[in-house]
């Protein structure tokens, strides 16, 4: 059933917090995982909340994403504790979570996914700087940012704030939740929050059915603009990749810090073998190589690391771009993983995060293969 959470005097965040409190009070969930603004308002953090009183700074619509919460949901559900947990997630976090469930790294048991529309996110440091430069209390700043982002919906392709959206968000073509038990939306709704949930639950929460006729149109408009941006990024990358030199070119300042793999929600191995000594031979080997070649680039494993990560992640890459945001050198990892990932996913007719039933292609096979 579709309904609208009415915002009194335009207080969208107030309406949202009321709704989230109700979920806890009515026992729909016992715990909520929700992004909460810090008192200074410069960033937010994921919190696990039991007492609704702590929801007064909850802001899942805030345009920053310091971590992909899919990883936290994995932490909270992988051992199947069976707790009634509600997780407030952005669409890319839901997609990553679905992939993690299929990889056996998270569980949907008793989990209620509360998916929010995403208006795009900013780099953590850019956003903190912007907030510093704004006038008013942290609360006012947060509301002001949300108001500007909402106005921006009508002008896709433009920047609603004086800072630039993260590369992944600029080319994101899946910014409304695909699989969520409760959807909280901002697209195409005035003076409130669009919500979609089971009729029984809506009744319990005292919501009355109300349609949001402009929603699909608003989404399509943004989608068209994003798809165009996305295809342009793909075409540029594909045009550039002629030989291995061009690929090495994108990565030649990599410092092998492995921040991209730490930030990636799909890269789930407890111990990555690049952090073991598997590929760190005794020094004698390096001397033997250089004896043969005359010169050896150090460190040696940059290409191997990124190509291996591509092989492990590309099929399930859901385009959150956390890799690039975490990269101290700002290597174009979003472009690489999204473009290459898209190619692999199309070849296998697989869309990560689309469905729980659809098996991950590498974990299954057909008798007659392509």
């Amino acid at each position, binding site marked *: 059933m579709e309904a609208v959470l009415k915002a009194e005097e335009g207080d969208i965040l107030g309406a949202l917090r009321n709704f989230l409190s109700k979920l806890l009070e009515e026992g729909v969930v016992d715990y909520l995982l929700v992004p909460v603004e810090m008192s200074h308002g410069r960033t937010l953090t994921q919190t696990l909340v039991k007492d609704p009183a702590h929801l007064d700074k909850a802001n899942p619509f805030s345009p920053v994403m310091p971590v992909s919460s899919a990883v936290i949901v994995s932490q909270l559900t992988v051992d199947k504790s069976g707790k009634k947990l509600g997780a407030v997630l952005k669409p890319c976090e839901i997609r990553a979570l679905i992939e993690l469930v299929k990889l056996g790294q998270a569980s949907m048991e008793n989990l209620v996914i509360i998916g929010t529309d995403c208006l795009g996110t900013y780099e953590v440091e850019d956003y903190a700087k912007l907030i510093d430069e704004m006038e008013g209390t942290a609360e006012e700043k947060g509301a002001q940012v949300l108001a500007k982002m909402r106005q921006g919906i009508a002008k896709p392709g433009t920047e609603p704030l004086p800072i630039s959206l993260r590369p992944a968000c600029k080319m994101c073509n899946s910014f409304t939740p695909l699989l969520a038990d409760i959807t909280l939306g901002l697209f195409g709704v005035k003076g409130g929050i669009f919500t979609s949930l089971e009729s029984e639950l809506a009744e319990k929460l005292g919501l009355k059915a109300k349609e949001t006729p402009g929603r699909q149109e608003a989404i399509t408009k943004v989608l068209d603009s994003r798809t165009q941006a996305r295809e342009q990024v793909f075409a540029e990358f594909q045009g550039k990749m002629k030989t291995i030199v061009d690929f090495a070119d994108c990565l030649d300042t990599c410092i092998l810090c492995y921040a991209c793999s730490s930030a990636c929600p799909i890269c789930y191995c407890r111990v990555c073998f690049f952090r073991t000594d598997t590929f760190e031979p005794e020094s004698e080997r390096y001397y033997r190589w250089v004896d043969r070649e005359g010169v050896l680039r150090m460190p040696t494993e940059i290409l191997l690391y990124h190509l291996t990560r591509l092989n492990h992640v590309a099929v399930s890459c859901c385009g959150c771009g956390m890799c690039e945001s975490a990269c101290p050198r700002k290597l174009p990892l979003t472009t690489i993983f999204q473009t290459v990932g898209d190619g692999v996913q199309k070849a296998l007719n697989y869309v990560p995060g689309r469905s729980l039933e659809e098996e991950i292609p590498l*974990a299954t096979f057909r008798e007659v293969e392509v």
Partner: protein
Amino acid sequence: MCSGSIDPVYVLKALLDGADGVLIGGCHLGNCHYQDGNYKAMRRVEVLKNILRQVGIDEERVWLRWIDASEGGLFSETVQQMVVELQAKGPNPMRKPWQVWQETVGYRLPAVESKPKK
């Protein structure tokens, strides 16, 4: 080692260390001791080749062939055929990795203006 247990990292390591080709030999489809190991290998290699193609590495340097442990003749034929095809391709550019790195222009780094020498 079951072909289904081959992580692409080992194939990549060989290619990036300059091997002209990598042959992955597996048991024939339907003959897998573990039921579906070779089917999994097939998909994994498909993904690997797709990625190699997209990043400018010749995917034809990776061969996946079904050769039983008892098929010595087939193994020999396959290797001979592979050698012929790889010779036609010439050496793997990664044979000279330093050259590969040196040829990069330093993507996203500020451009250096070259001044004519006086």
